[in-house]
Protein backbone atom coordinates (compact mmCIF):
# COMPACT_ATOMS: atom_id res chain seq x y z
CA UNK A 1 0.00 0.00 0.00
CA UNK A 2 2.77 2.36 0.91
CA UNK A 3 4.49 1.52 -2.30
CA UNK A 4 1.35 2.17 -4.28
CA UNK A 5 0.75 5.51 -2.62
CA UNK A 6 4.37 6.41 -2.94
CA UNK A 7 4.32 5.67 -6.61
CA UNK A 8 1.20 7.69 -7.09
CA UNK A 9 2.50 10.69 -5.17
CA UNK A 10 6.12 10.83 -6.12
CA UNK A 11 5.76 9.73 -9.71
CA UNK A 12 5.99 12.60 -12.11
CA UNK A 13 3.17 13.46 -14.39
CA UNK A 14 4.82 12.00 -17.44
CA UNK A 15 5.05 8.56 -15.93
CA UNK A 16 1.35 8.16 -15.31
CA UNK A 17 0.28 7.82 -18.93
CA UNK A 18 -2.33 10.50 -18.52
CA UNK A 19 -4.10 11.34 -21.71
CA UNK A 20 -3.80 14.80 -23.14
CA UNK A 21 -7.48 15.33 -22.60
CA UNK A 22 -7.09 14.74 -18.90
CA UNK A 23 -4.03 16.93 -18.68
CA UNK A 24 -5.70 19.76 -20.54
CA UNK A 25 -8.87 19.55 -18.48
CA UNK A 26 -6.91 19.51 -15.26
CA UNK A 27 -4.80 22.48 -16.32
CA UNK A 28 -7.79 24.57 -17.32
CA UNK A 29 -9.77 23.66 -14.21
CA UNK A 30 -6.79 24.34 -11.96
CA UNK A 31 -6.26 27.71 -13.58
CA UNK A 32 -9.93 28.55 -13.08
CA UNK A 33 -9.79 27.47 -9.45
CA UNK A 34 -6.69 29.48 -8.66
CA UNK A 35 -7.85 32.56 -10.52
CA UNK A 36 -11.17 32.47 -8.72
CA UNK A 37 -9.51 32.02 -5.34
CA UNK A 38 -7.16 34.93 -5.91
CA UNK A 39 -10.12 36.96 -7.10
CA UNK A 40 -11.99 36.24 -3.87
CA UNK A 41 -9.06 37.50 -1.84
CA UNK A 42 -8.29 40.65 -3.79
CA UNK A 43 -11.75 41.76 -4.93
CA UNK A 44 -12.81 44.93 -3.18
CA UNK A 45 -16.50 44.57 -3.79
CA UNK A 46 -18.07 41.65 -1.87
CA UNK A 47 -20.36 40.92 -4.83
CA UNK A 48 -17.37 40.43 -7.08
CA UNK A 49 -15.82 38.19 -4.45
CA UNK A 50 -18.96 36.05 -4.39
CA UNK A 51 -18.92 35.70 -8.18
CA UNK A 52 -15.27 34.73 -8.07
CA UNK A 53 -16.20 32.14 -5.46
CA UNK A 54 -18.70 30.67 -7.93
CA UNK A 55 -15.90 30.38 -10.46
CA UNK A 56 -13.73 28.49 -8.00
CA UNK A 57 -16.57 26.17 -7.08
CA UNK A 58 -17.23 25.29 -10.70
CA UNK A 59 -13.56 24.54 -11.19
CA UNK A 60 -13.61 22.24 -8.18
CA UNK A 61 -16.68 20.51 -9.63
CA UNK A 62 -14.79 19.89 -12.86
CA UNK A 63 -11.95 18.39 -10.86
CA UNK A 64 -14.46 16.14 -9.09
CA UNK A 65 -15.75 14.91 -12.43
CA UNK A 66 -12.21 14.29 -13.53
CA UNK A 67 -11.76 11.99 -10.54
CA UNK A 68 -14.98 10.04 -11.17
CA UNK A 69 -16.86 11.67 -8.30
CA UNK A 70 -19.91 12.49 -10.39
CA UNK A 71 -22.45 12.76 -7.61
CA UNK A 72 -20.27 15.07 -5.58
CA UNK A 73 -19.71 17.29 -8.59
CA UNK A 74 -23.45 17.67 -9.06
CA UNK A 75 -23.97 18.32 -5.38
CA UNK A 76 -21.12 20.81 -5.42
CA UNK A 77 -22.79 22.82 -8.15
CA UNK A 78 -26.27 22.58 -6.67
CA UNK A 79 -25.47 23.17 -3.02
CA UNK A 80 -22.52 25.51 -3.20
CA UNK A 81 -23.12 27.53 -6.34
CA UNK A 82 -26.86 27.22 -6.11
CA UNK A 83 -27.55 27.68 -2.44
CA UNK A 84 -24.59 28.94 -0.45
CA UNK A 85 -23.42 31.63 -2.84
CA UNK A 86 -26.99 32.74 -3.38
CA UNK A 87 -27.27 33.03 0.39
CA UNK A 88 -24.11 35.11 0.43
CA UNK A 89 -25.43 37.38 -2.31
CA UNK A 90 -28.76 37.66 -0.55
CA UNK A 91 -27.12 38.80 2.67
CA UNK A 92 -24.90 41.23 0.77
CA UNK A 93 -27.89 42.78 -0.95
CA UNK A 94 -29.98 42.67 2.19
CA UNK A 95 -27.44 44.53 4.26
CA UNK A 96 -26.50 46.89 1.49
CA UNK A 97 -22.83 46.14 1.93
CA UNK A 98 -21.89 47.32 -1.51
CA UNK A 99 -19.49 49.78 0.02
CA UNK A 100 -16.00 48.85 -0.93
CA UNK A 101 -13.65 48.05 1.86
CA UNK A 102 -10.82 50.51 2.05
CA UNK A 103 -7.82 48.41 1.25
CA UNK A 104 -5.38 51.20 1.92
CA UNK A 105 -6.09 51.31 5.62
CA UNK A 106 -4.08 48.85 7.61
CA UNK A 107 -5.20 48.94 11.23
CA UNK A 108 -2.60 46.51 12.47
CA UNK A 109 0.75 47.60 11.23
CA UNK A 110 2.66 44.84 9.53
CA UNK A 111 -0.22 42.38 9.64
CA UNK A 112 -0.37 41.73 5.93
CA UNK A 113 3.31 40.96 5.35
CA UNK A 114 3.26 38.79 8.44
CA UNK A 115 0.18 36.92 7.24
CA UNK A 116 1.63 36.46 3.77
CA UNK A 117 4.91 35.22 5.22
CA UNK A 118 3.24 32.77 7.54
CA UNK A 119 0.99 31.44 4.80
CA UNK A 120 3.88 31.00 2.40
CA UNK A 121 5.86 29.25 5.11
CA UNK A 122 2.98 26.89 5.84
CA UNK A 123 2.44 26.13 2.18
CA UNK A 124 6.11 25.45 1.60
CA UNK A 125 6.19 23.21 4.66
CA UNK A 126 3.21 21.18 3.49
CA UNK A 127 4.55 20.77 -0.02
CA UNK A 128 8.02 19.81 1.13
CA UNK A 129 6.69 17.36 3.68
CA UNK A 130 4.44 15.84 1.05
CA UNK A 131 7.41 15.34 -1.20
CA UNK A 132 9.95 13.95 1.21
CA UNK A 133 7.89 11.93 3.63
CA UNK A 134 5.42 9.11 3.36
CA UNK A 135 2.98 9.04 6.19
CA UNK A 136 0.38 6.59 5.12
CA UNK A 137 -1.60 5.08 7.91
CA UNK A 138 -4.68 2.97 7.97
CA UNK A 139 -5.95 0.46 5.50
CA UNK A 140 -7.36 1.02 2.08
CA UNK A 141 -10.97 0.31 1.25
CA UNK A 142 -12.44 0.05 4.69
CA UNK A 143 -15.65 1.60 3.43
CA UNK A 144 -15.82 0.02 0.02
CA UNK A 145 -14.07 0.48 -3.27
CA UNK A 146 -14.28 3.81 -5.00
CA UNK A 147 -12.81 2.81 -8.32
CA UNK A 148 -13.75 -0.07 -10.52
CA UNK A 149 -17.03 -1.01 -12.16
CA UNK A 150 -20.37 0.32 -11.03
CA UNK A 151 -21.75 3.79 -10.89
CA UNK A 152 -20.46 6.32 -8.44
CA UNK A 153 -23.92 7.16 -7.15
CA UNK A 154 -24.63 3.53 -6.37
CA UNK A 155 -21.44 3.04 -4.39
CA UNK A 156 -21.77 6.32 -2.55
CA UNK A 157 -25.40 5.69 -1.69
CA UNK A 158 -24.74 2.19 -0.45
CA UNK A 159 -21.96 3.44 1.76
CA UNK A 160 -23.99 6.31 3.16
CA UNK A 161 -26.98 4.16 3.98
CA UNK A 162 -25.08 1.23 5.45
CA UNK A 163 -21.69 2.10 6.90
CA UNK A 164 -22.39 5.75 7.57
CA UNK A 165 -26.05 5.52 8.44
CA UNK A 166 -25.76 6.93 11.94
CA UNK A 167 -23.70 10.00 10.93
CA UNK A 168 -26.21 10.55 8.17
CA UNK A 169 -29.05 10.62 10.69
CA UNK A 170 -27.09 12.94 12.97
CA UNK A 171 -26.70 15.24 9.99
CA UNK A 172 -30.44 15.76 9.91
CA UNK A 173 -30.36 16.87 13.54
CA UNK A 174 -27.55 19.26 12.66
CA UNK A 175 -29.61 20.80 9.89
CA UNK A 176 -32.62 21.23 12.15
CA UNK A 177 -30.44 22.92 14.75
CA UNK A 178 -29.02 25.22 12.08
CA UNK A 179 -32.47 26.21 10.87
CA UNK A 180 -33.70 26.96 14.37
CA UNK A 181 -30.54 28.89 15.14
CA UNK A 182 -30.89 30.96 11.99
CA UNK A 183 -34.47 31.82 12.85
CA UNK A 184 -33.54 32.82 16.38
CA UNK A 185 -30.57 34.88 15.21
CA UNK A 186 -32.43 36.66 12.44
CA UNK A 187 -35.44 37.53 14.57
CA UNK A 188 -35.82 41.19 15.38
CA UNK A 189 -35.02 41.91 19.00
CA UNK A 190 -38.05 42.70 21.11
CA UNK A 191 -37.98 46.47 21.54
CA UNK A 192 -40.85 48.14 23.33
CA UNK A 193 -44.40 46.96 23.44
CA UNK A 194 -45.48 48.82 20.32
CA UNK A 195 -45.02 45.99 17.88
CA UNK A 196 -47.26 43.59 19.74
CA UNK A 197 -50.33 41.86 18.44
CA UNK A 198 -52.48 44.96 18.97
CA UNK A 199 -51.07 46.57 15.86
CA UNK A 200 -53.34 45.77 12.93
CA UNK A 201 -53.90 46.79 9.37
CA UNK A 202 -50.97 48.61 7.87
CA UNK A 203 -48.49 47.22 10.36
CA UNK A 204 -46.80 45.19 7.70
CA UNK A 205 -45.99 48.23 5.64
CA UNK A 206 -44.74 50.12 8.64
CA UNK A 207 -42.63 47.23 9.67
CA UNK A 208 -41.30 47.03 6.18
CA UNK A 209 -40.28 50.67 6.20
CA UNK A 210 -38.68 50.27 9.56
CA UNK A 211 -36.69 47.34 8.28
CA UNK A 212 -35.71 49.23 5.18
CA UNK A 213 -34.34 52.06 7.22
CA UNK A 214 -32.59 49.57 9.38
CA UNK A 215 -31.12 47.66 6.50
CA UNK A 216 -29.84 50.81 4.87
CA UNK A 217 -27.33 50.93 7.62
CA UNK A 218 -27.96 54.32 9.10
CA UNK A 219 -29.71 53.32 12.27
CA UNK A 220 -27.59 52.20 15.13
CA UNK A 221 -29.95 51.58 17.99
CA UNK A 222 -33.41 50.13 18.29
CA UNK A 223 -35.03 53.28 19.61
CA UNK A 224 -35.14 54.77 16.15
CA UNK A 225 -37.30 51.91 14.99
CA UNK A 226 -39.80 52.73 17.67
CA UNK A 227 -39.87 56.33 16.60
CA UNK A 228 -40.45 55.23 13.04
CA UNK A 229 -43.34 53.07 13.98
CA UNK A 230 -44.96 55.81 16.00
CA UNK A 231 -44.52 58.49 13.38
CA UNK A 232 -45.58 56.50 10.38
CA UNK A 233 -49.35 56.30 11.06
Amino acid at each position, binding site marked *: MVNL*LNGAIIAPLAATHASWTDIGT*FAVAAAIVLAGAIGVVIARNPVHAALMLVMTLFGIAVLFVLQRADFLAAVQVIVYAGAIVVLFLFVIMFLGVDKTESVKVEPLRGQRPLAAGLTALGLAGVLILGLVSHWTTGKASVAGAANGPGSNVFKLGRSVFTTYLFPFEVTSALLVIAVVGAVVL*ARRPPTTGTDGPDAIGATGAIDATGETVDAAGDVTDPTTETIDEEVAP
Partner: protein
Amino acid sequence: MTIAGAWYLGLAAVLFSIGALGLLIRRNVLVMFMCVELMLNAANLTFVTFARMMNDIGGQVLVFFVLVVAAAEVVIGLGIVVAIFRRRANATADDLHLMKG
Protein backbone atom coordinates in the same frame (compact mmCIF):
# COMPACT_ATOMS: atom_id res chain seq x y z
CA MET B 1 -4.97 6.39 -16.67
CA THR B 2 -5.66 9.68 -15.00
CA ILE B 3 -3.47 12.36 -13.60
CA ALA B 4 -1.38 11.57 -10.55
CA GLY B 5 -2.93 12.53 -7.26
CA ALA B 6 0.05 14.66 -6.31
CA TRP B 7 -1.09 17.39 -8.65
CA TYR B 8 -4.50 17.50 -7.06
CA LEU B 9 -2.97 17.56 -3.60
CA GLY B 10 -0.63 20.38 -4.53
CA LEU B 11 -3.48 22.36 -6.02
CA ALA B 12 -5.52 21.78 -2.87
CA ALA B 13 -2.63 22.97 -0.71
CA VAL B 14 -2.28 26.15 -2.75
CA LEU B 15 -6.02 26.73 -2.62
CA PHE B 16 -6.06 26.25 1.13
CA SER B 17 -3.18 28.71 1.52
CA ILE B 18 -4.97 31.32 -0.56
CA GLY B 19 -8.05 30.89 1.59
CA ALA B 20 -6.05 31.19 4.80
CA LEU B 21 -4.28 34.27 3.50
CA GLY B 22 -7.57 35.90 2.61
CA LEU B 23 -8.98 35.07 6.01
CA LEU B 24 -5.99 36.76 7.62
CA ILE B 25 -5.81 39.93 5.56
CA ARG B 26 -9.42 40.75 4.75
CA ARG B 27 -11.56 42.68 7.18
CA ASN B 28 -14.99 42.34 5.62
CA VAL B 29 -16.80 39.59 7.49
CA LEU B 30 -18.57 38.26 4.43
CA VAL B 31 -15.37 37.97 2.43
CA MET B 32 -13.77 36.22 5.37
CA PHE B 33 -16.60 33.70 5.22
CA MET B 34 -15.94 33.17 1.53
CA CYS B 35 -12.31 32.48 2.32
CA VAL B 36 -13.42 29.85 4.82
CA GLU B 37 -15.41 28.29 2.00
CA LEU B 38 -12.27 28.24 -0.11
CA MET B 39 -10.45 26.34 2.62
CA LEU B 40 -13.32 23.87 2.94
CA ASN B 41 -13.22 23.26 -0.79
CA ALA B 42 -9.51 22.61 -0.66
CA ALA B 43 -10.14 19.99 2.00
CA ASN B 44 -12.89 18.47 -0.11
CA LEU B 45 -10.58 18.21 -3.08
CA THR B 46 -8.04 16.45 -0.91
CA PHE B 47 -10.66 14.01 0.31
CA VAL B 48 -11.79 13.12 -3.19
CA THR B 49 -8.22 12.73 -4.35
CA PHE B 50 -7.38 10.36 -1.52
CA ALA B 51 -10.59 8.46 -2.13
CA ARG B 52 -9.41 7.81 -5.64
CA MET B 53 -5.81 7.07 -4.71
CA MET B 54 -6.62 4.71 -1.87
CA ASN B 55 -9.67 3.25 -3.63
CA ASP B 56 -11.95 4.02 -0.71
CA ILE B 57 -15.42 5.47 -1.08
CA GLY B 58 -15.24 6.77 2.50
CA GLY B 59 -13.47 9.90 1.31
CA GLN B 60 -16.36 10.83 -0.91
CA VAL B 61 -18.84 10.15 1.87
CA LEU B 62 -16.86 12.48 4.08
CA VAL B 63 -17.04 15.19 1.43
CA PHE B 64 -20.80 14.70 1.51
CA PHE B 65 -20.84 15.40 5.23
CA VAL B 66 -18.50 18.35 4.85
CA LEU B 67 -20.97 19.85 2.40
CA VAL B 68 -23.78 19.53 4.92
CA VAL B 69 -21.72 21.03 7.72
CA ALA B 70 -20.62 23.86 5.44
CA ALA B 71 -24.21 24.67 4.60
CA ALA B 72 -25.18 24.74 8.28
CA GLU B 73 -22.13 26.82 9.13
CA VAL B 74 -22.91 29.38 6.45
CA VAL B 75 -26.50 29.67 7.59
CA ILE B 76 -25.51 30.29 11.20
CA GLY B 77 -22.61 32.56 10.30
CA LEU B 78 -24.68 34.74 8.04
CA GLY B 79 -27.37 34.88 10.71
CA ILE B 80 -24.78 36.19 13.14
CA VAL B 81 -23.58 38.71 10.54
CA VAL B 82 -27.11 39.96 9.99
CA ALA B 83 -27.65 40.26 13.73
CA ILE B 84 -24.43 42.25 14.11
CA PHE B 85 -25.21 44.53 11.19
CA ARG B 86 -28.58 45.23 12.70
CA ARG B 87 -26.90 46.61 15.80
CA ARG B 88 -24.20 48.62 14.10
CA ALA B 89 -23.83 49.65 10.51
CA ASN B 90 -20.70 49.08 8.46
CA ALA B 91 -19.09 46.61 10.76
CA THR B 92 -15.78 45.16 9.69
CA ALA B 93 -14.03 42.61 11.81
CA ASP B 94 -12.09 45.41 13.50
CA ASP B 95 -15.20 47.07 14.81
CA LEU B 96 -16.31 44.01 16.72
CA HIS B 97 -14.41 44.65 19.90
CA LEU B 98 -17.28 44.56 22.35
CA MET B 99 -15.54 42.03 24.52
CA LYS B 100 -12.36 44.03 24.80
CA GLY B 101 -11.89 45.09 28.41
